[in-house]
């Protein structure tokens, strides 16, 4: 029997390294017809903001080679409705529930975190400072290490729960951003959010995404994500949660070897709703066949 558990520092322990990526799993209940969501070691919710947001106008998504661009614009039901409507379903979930928080201003982040940290069925937070397709805020915090550091410090004051920062790959050096998060008290970093991407309809000449530039995800970006995790793992000691283009069990092993302690499944949910089940099976088989008794033994074991 392979030990699939993963510790993310002192505060959180996952039954297995697979979590959901924000915005690709609804609020958790949509896929529950199709599989038991307790297969996931952790669930990360859609980004929530203190007030509800209707999101961006269509078109919001477009398929690209081995990937997609999205510009959902952080459409979400808002913190209060979330707590009312989803408590029943999510408090039954046996894994670790992480709420992803987005904001346009510091105050919006603070307000959401203050409210949510009081809720006992929420185990931690992922702070989205890296959404490429909302006009104000979001990515602004994720671009400048000083601004980011300040935000993390203040958020740290507001909760003792697990606090991780989700970083953007659209920066010159993701390592510097990761270091800043560690320095300012984050428990972990998650990477990568989507890359900037755009596409144009050559007949109508219109952008295929409402906001012109949206966020690129899916298998196409996996090499960028692996490179980002390798870079970050060289400069920080706090856990890294890796994501970006995971489509199968092999990919998850690649992220772990690169230095991620756990991973999030995103776009894969759209093209393989059973991904989590197939990946768990692969991981068990891979570990068995390669005499690995604990999956955590793989973390960072790239052989230079």
């Amino acid at each position: 029997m392979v030990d699939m558990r993963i510790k993310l520092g002192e505060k959180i322990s996952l039954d297995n390294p697979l979590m959901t990526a924000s915005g690709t799993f609804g609020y958790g209940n949509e896929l529950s017809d199709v599989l038991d969501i307790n297969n996931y070691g952790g669930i990360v919710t859609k980004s929530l903001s203190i007030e509800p947001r209707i999101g961006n106008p269509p078109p919001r998504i477009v398929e690209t080679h081995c990937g997609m661009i999205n510009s959902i614009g952080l459409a979400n039901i808002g913190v209060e409705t979330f707590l009312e409507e989803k408590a029943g379903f999510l408090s039954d979930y046996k894994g670790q529930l992480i709420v992803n928080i987005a904001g346009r201003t510091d105050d919006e982040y603070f307000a959401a975190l203050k409210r949510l940290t009081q809720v006992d069925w929420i185990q931690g937070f992922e702070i989205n400072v890296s959404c490429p397709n909302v006009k104000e805020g979001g990515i602004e915090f994720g671009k400048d290490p000083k601004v980011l550091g300040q935000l993390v410090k203040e958020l740290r004051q507001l909760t003792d729960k697990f606090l991780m920062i989700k970083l953007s790959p659209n920066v010159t050096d993701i390592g510097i951003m990761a270091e800043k998060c560690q320095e300012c008290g984050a428990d972990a970093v998650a990477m990568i959010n989507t890359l900037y991407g755009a596409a144009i309809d050559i007949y109508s000449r219109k952008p295929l995404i409402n906001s012109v530039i949206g966020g690129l995800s899916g298998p196409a970006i996996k090499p960028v994500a692996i490179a980002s995790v390798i870079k970050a793992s060289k400069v920080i000691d706090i856990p890294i949660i890796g994501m970006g283009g995971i489509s199968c069990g092999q990919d998850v092993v690649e992220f772990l070897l690169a230095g991620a302690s756990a991973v999030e499944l995103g776009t894969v949910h759209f093209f393989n709703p059973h991904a989590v089940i197939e990946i768990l099976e692969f991981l068990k088989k891979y570990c068995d066949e390669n005499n690995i008794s604990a999956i955590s033994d793989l973390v960072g074991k790239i052989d230079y």
Partner: protein
Amino acid sequence: MKKYLSSKIISNQQLSKSFFQMDINCPEIVKISEPGQFVNIYFSGDKKIFPRPFSIAGAKNGILKIVYKVVGSQTLQMSRWKSGHDLKILGPLGNKFSIKTGGTHVLIGGGVGIAPMLFLKDSLVTKNSKPYLLIGARNKDEMFLFEDYESELNLSTDDGSHGFRGNVVSYFQALVDSMEKPLHVYCCGPDKMLEVLAAYCKKMKFDLQVSIEKVMACGMGLCQGCATKTKTESGEIKYSLVCKDGPVYNAGDVFFNG
């Protein structure tokens, strides 16, 4: 309770130049499908990553039927699958037509919009209603015929090469006087056609339900990608998810350019 399954193709026949009908063995989905709902078909190994949504065109005896038009790479690939091929399928997805009681049911399908109308027709026939089924196509090559109708079948082509000459909405207008009122109209077809029909039905105070299309990534409310602008009953503007809140809407609630 949607299901994600590996199912076998029973048959995949060409109906006309670019239309195909695929029969898929999936009793689990058939059992719980309702007219207006759709399924997702999955692909693998490809540079295209989204599954493709198709209206359920029939669900009987454990066999799910879809009718599809070859318009791009994935439908082309589907057209090459042979009986016996295993495919991954998710469904049923979306809401359904709400079937009104009393009056006359008029089902209008433009182009491949015929697909959900076939299932709706089956269902109305079972309920002992004799619906009109109006089918519009661009020309004869795009038109196809089915074995078994059990309904008033009316064909039109834009170029007059088969049946009524003109689009299916004009055809409906030409027939409307002969139809016993009140009318319940159901339609699936290109946005432009829906828009024209919606304006007409509004004027005539016919109740109209439309099934609309949007590019979808997940088909089940995970991604919020398929949002379309709608009006709520209270007149408020709202982005509705076509895959979950739709694809069927009261015509009055939809913005056809949203």
